[in-house]
């Protein structure tokens, strides 16, 4: 006599797994299709953009549009400015934000709760409201129209998230581990650098993605604070209305690619948790 095996649970599990896969594919497509279309348009010939119906496959590839875009005045400089501003913002906000997050996580001090609330107020103000007085201030300080001015603005915008994310990251690093390092001869700074910081790195990588992408995409403040030293989005925006369609696609392409590269690089740190890799 053989027993009949009830296979419904395993069938349900299979079905659930299939639906999860389908959902993942749907979300990925939602993200990827616009990027694909922009890349396609940026890499197609000018004429093929006017064809009807538009071909969705890369049949008419050429770098002519992109070359024209990159060759137009100010684009390379703007790309450089964007990279400088992004890296500068990353560095400055980490320099200020990571220690601040550590202090929030490890120490109690008077005014700690109001401080955390106050941090978020910078983000409550619209960028325009922040930028106009800043522009005045920077004019009197003689740093108007420099990448440095934009770095300062972007750092101010990024700090709340940097501080709050790194505080919660440091909260997840056990105090025990830090104390053990101290007992074995590390100075406070040594214990931070050798033990706490490496353990916090994946979370800090996440914060840095927010910071870089925010800085890379921010256009309003960068447009107000600069004239000749525009970042890429500000430069593209200022010449968008009077430029051909192909130029706009090429601009979009040039804007998207660097931040995708940055995210891909940081993803390695993000998903590489200690001893286990999220796949």
């Amino acid at each position: 006599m053989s027993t009949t095996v009830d296979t419904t649970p395993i069938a349900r599990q299979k079905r659930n797994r299939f639906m999860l896969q389908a959902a993942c594919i749907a979300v990925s497509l939602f993200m990827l299709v616009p990027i694909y279309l922009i890349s396609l348009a940026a890499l197609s010939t000018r004429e093929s953009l006017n064809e009807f119906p538009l071909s969705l496959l890369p049949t008419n590839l050429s770098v002519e549009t992109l070359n024209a875009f990159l060759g137009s005045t100010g684009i390379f400089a703007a790309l450089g400015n964007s990279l400088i501003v992004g890296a500068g913002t990353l560095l400055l906000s980490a320099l200020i934000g990571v220690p601040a997050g550590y202090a929030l996580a490890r120490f109690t001090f008077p005014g700690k709760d109001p401080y955390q609330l106050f941090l978020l107020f910078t983000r409550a103000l619209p960028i325009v409201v922040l930028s106009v007085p800043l522009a005045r201030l920077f004019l009197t300080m003689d740093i108007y129209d420099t990448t440095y001015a934009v770095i300062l603005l972007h750092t101010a915008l990024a700090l709340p998230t940097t501080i709050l994310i790194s505080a919660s990251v440091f909260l997840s690093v056990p105090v025990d581990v830090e104390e053990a390092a101290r007992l074995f001869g590390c100075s406070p700074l040594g214990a931070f650098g050798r033990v706490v910081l490496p353990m916090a790195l994946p979370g800090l990588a996440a914060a840095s993605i927010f910071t870089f992408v925010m800085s890379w995409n921010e256009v309003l403040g960068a447009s107000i604070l600069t004239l000749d030293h525009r970042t890429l989005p500000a430069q593209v925006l200022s010449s968008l209305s009077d430029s051909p369609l192909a130029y706009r696609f090429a601009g979009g392409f040039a804007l998207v690619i660097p931040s995708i590269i940055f995210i891909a690089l940081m993803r390695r740190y993000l998903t590489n948790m200690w001893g286990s890799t999220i796949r």
Partner: protein
Amino acid sequence: MADIQISNLVKTYPGGSERATDDVSLSIRDGEFTVLLGPSGCGKTTLLRMIAGLELPDSGSISIGGRDVTYLPPNKRNLSMVFQSYAVFPHRKVRYNIGFGLRMAKVPVEEIERKVQWAADLLQLGPYLDRLPANLSGGQRQRWPWPGPSSWTPTSC
């Protein structure tokens, strides 16, 4: 020589109303095996943390081997302590974790390598030296050696 002299140690945690340790005096001779026994919350952990330098007493003094260490930072005390939870560095291999205290004590590299191998053989952790702590079994983790500088050349434990 590593006698421990504790006299009139008083500690109240900030915000606490009661003293965590109330005028504790104690002397432990070199090589002596001492057990602290008492009800939960009576201040055993607090006392040990003050000896290690992880908490600072409000008054009283601690000296180890004749040297006053009352307010000395933990990294200057040359002590070792096993934590109630396993404090391991999860981002570093087992080998690095075991050798950490020696590395901090600036022991030469070959010497560290030799001693780590010796401890690992003793605890049958040899094959796992190049793994991350997360990839050990529960029992393997319990055999975890925590060799600070002092467990190799004890001044006190």
